[in-house]
């Protein structure tokens, strides 16, 4: 029992560290577009994101229940080995998260977590211990459908935002006002991030507590909610300095109306999904929205190569973190629980330290920024002078016709004058 307790404590520490890296990794999800358009000062944006992540974590626990009571069948795994498997899964998630952060690859913290847990369970227990139905319906399918959903919604609302504010007389269109709106919509995204991402860690800690019999229901305890909320908020705030230095330089071409629409789409998709317990990736949803809203602007085209690169990064996350989780579980199975967990913990600390020290050698540029969202802004190319709308074309035709008529009238008048003078 003492060994189990020790491992559970290690799981909680590691889970909270994962929560911290999650916040660190995802600050840009909410704040990429308002910083890019100048709607918020970078420092204020990061602080706002941190506070709202904290608040959001308290709003709902549906996603936490999905993780603690759905993905893994607790009854199929012995209570003595289960905490070690969760530990191995977390090692897979954190290692993959840190590695992609160092390499500047687009990746999802949520999928790293699911991949790590699934990989570790497959090796440490058996395939029967994983509820494939829940994995498919609440993790894999939302991962494929959510970015598409967010993209379609963002495309539609961007078209609406531009159509509603378009002027044909070259007078001010008021689109500057979307910059105010962006403060609210980006706040909503940060809140939504808290409702979805902080809960994933709550779910993992709750799962560990259930396995050792310290808890029976899948509802996270208050101290777990509080600890996860504070950690993700801290991670979000600490991650901000990198965003300030990179997004301040402007990684992506986002106009206020477009940014407002993208954030409205991201927030509504995440909040609706959180309410139904879908554990989706906020990075993927935000990226889908940025691409969708880019396409909603006139004269935009997709850079399929960039889209492909981003999607490969997404697809790679689940199996890659699963592989690391499986390797860690293999070490635990081979060396025995205590020694195995200690070896894994030492290896994880060494890897994290090495990655952190290596990252300090690199200057922060758009290439190694942690913003998958800003990266997806490059997936859409928007022409500087977009083609005219149907009504603009019609107005131009009318103006041309009027000019032609005026010219003809002037010519007739000149001829008439000349005729009069001749007489």
């Amino acid at each position: 029992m003492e060994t189990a307790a020790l491992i559970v404590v290690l799981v909680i520490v590691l889970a909270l560290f994962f929560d911290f890296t999650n916040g660190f990794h995802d600050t840009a999800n909410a704040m990429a577009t308002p910083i890019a358009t100048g709607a918020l000062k970078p420092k204020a944006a990061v602080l706002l994101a941190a506070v709202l992540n904290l608040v959001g974590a308290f709003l709902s626990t549906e996603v936490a229940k999905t993780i603690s009571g759905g993905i893994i069948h607790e009854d199929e795994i012995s209570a003595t080995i289960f905490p070690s498997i969760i530990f191995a899964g977390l090692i897979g998630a954190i290692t993959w998260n840190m590695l992609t952060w160092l390499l500047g690859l687009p990746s999802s913290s949520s999928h790293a977590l699911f991949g790590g847990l699934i990989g570790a369970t497959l090796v440490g227990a058996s395939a029967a211990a994983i509820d494939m139905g829940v994995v498919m319906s609440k993790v894999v399918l939302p991962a494929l459908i959510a970015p598409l959903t967010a993209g379609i919604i963002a495309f539609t609302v961007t078209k609406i935002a531009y159509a509603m504010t378009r002027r044909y007389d070259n007078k001010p269109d008021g689109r500057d006002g979307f910059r105010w709106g962006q403060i609210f919509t980006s706040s909503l995204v940060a809140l939504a991030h808290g409702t979805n991402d902080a809960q994933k860690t709550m779910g993992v800690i709750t799962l560990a507590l259930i396995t050792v019999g310290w808890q029976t229901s899948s509802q996270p305890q208050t101290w777990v909610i509080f600890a996860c909320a504070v950690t993700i908020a801290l991670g979000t705030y600490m991650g901000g300095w990198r965003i300030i230095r990179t997004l301040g330089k402007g990684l992506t071409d986002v106009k206020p109306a477009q940014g407002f629409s993208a954030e409205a789409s991201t927030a509504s998709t995440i909040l609706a999904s959180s309410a139904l317990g879908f554990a989706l990736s906020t990075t993927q949803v935000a990226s889908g929205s940025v691409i969708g809203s880019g396409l909603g602007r006139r004269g935009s085209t997709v850079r399929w190569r960039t889209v492909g690169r981003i999607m490969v990064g997404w697809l790679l996350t689940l199996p890659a973190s699963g592989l690391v989780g499986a390797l860690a579980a293999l070490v635990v199975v081979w060396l025995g629980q205590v020694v195995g967990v200690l070896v894994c913990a030492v290896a994880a600390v060494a890897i994290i330290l090495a990655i952190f020290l290596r990252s300090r050698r690199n200057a922060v540029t758009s290439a190694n920024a942690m913003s998958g969202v800003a990266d997806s802004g490059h997936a859409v190319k928007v022409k500087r002078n977009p083609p005219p709308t149907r009504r603009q074309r019609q107005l131009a035709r009318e103006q041309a016709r009027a000019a032609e008529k005026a010219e003809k009238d002037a010519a007739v008048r000149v001829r008439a004058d000349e005729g009069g003078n001749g007489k």
Partner: protein
Amino acid sequence: MTVTIDWLAFLQVFVVAMAGAVVVVTFYAVGLRMLVRSGHAPVVSPAEFTDAITVITEKQAKRSAKAAAKAAKRNPLTQTQKRIALVAAYAAFAVCALAVLGGLLLIVFNH
């Protein structure tokens, strides 16, 4: 092993998210349109003039403020029409805020 997938839940998410985003964006855009109509075209300078590619320069911000003031002066509407447009703008922003608040309350009370 049978895998049952609740496709209706995905449809629900899509419909709810689409409806929420459409209501928020449409009413906010209507609000801005009405503000412009009332002669209060919003001129919002960036919080910080960074060198980001989409952040306008101070010169551009001043120019758009001047254009907005000029357009407000030449507004052909009567005072009553302007006042109605301003009330409509605030009403649209209120609907927008209520939609967001309603969505959040639904989540809080649903769990």
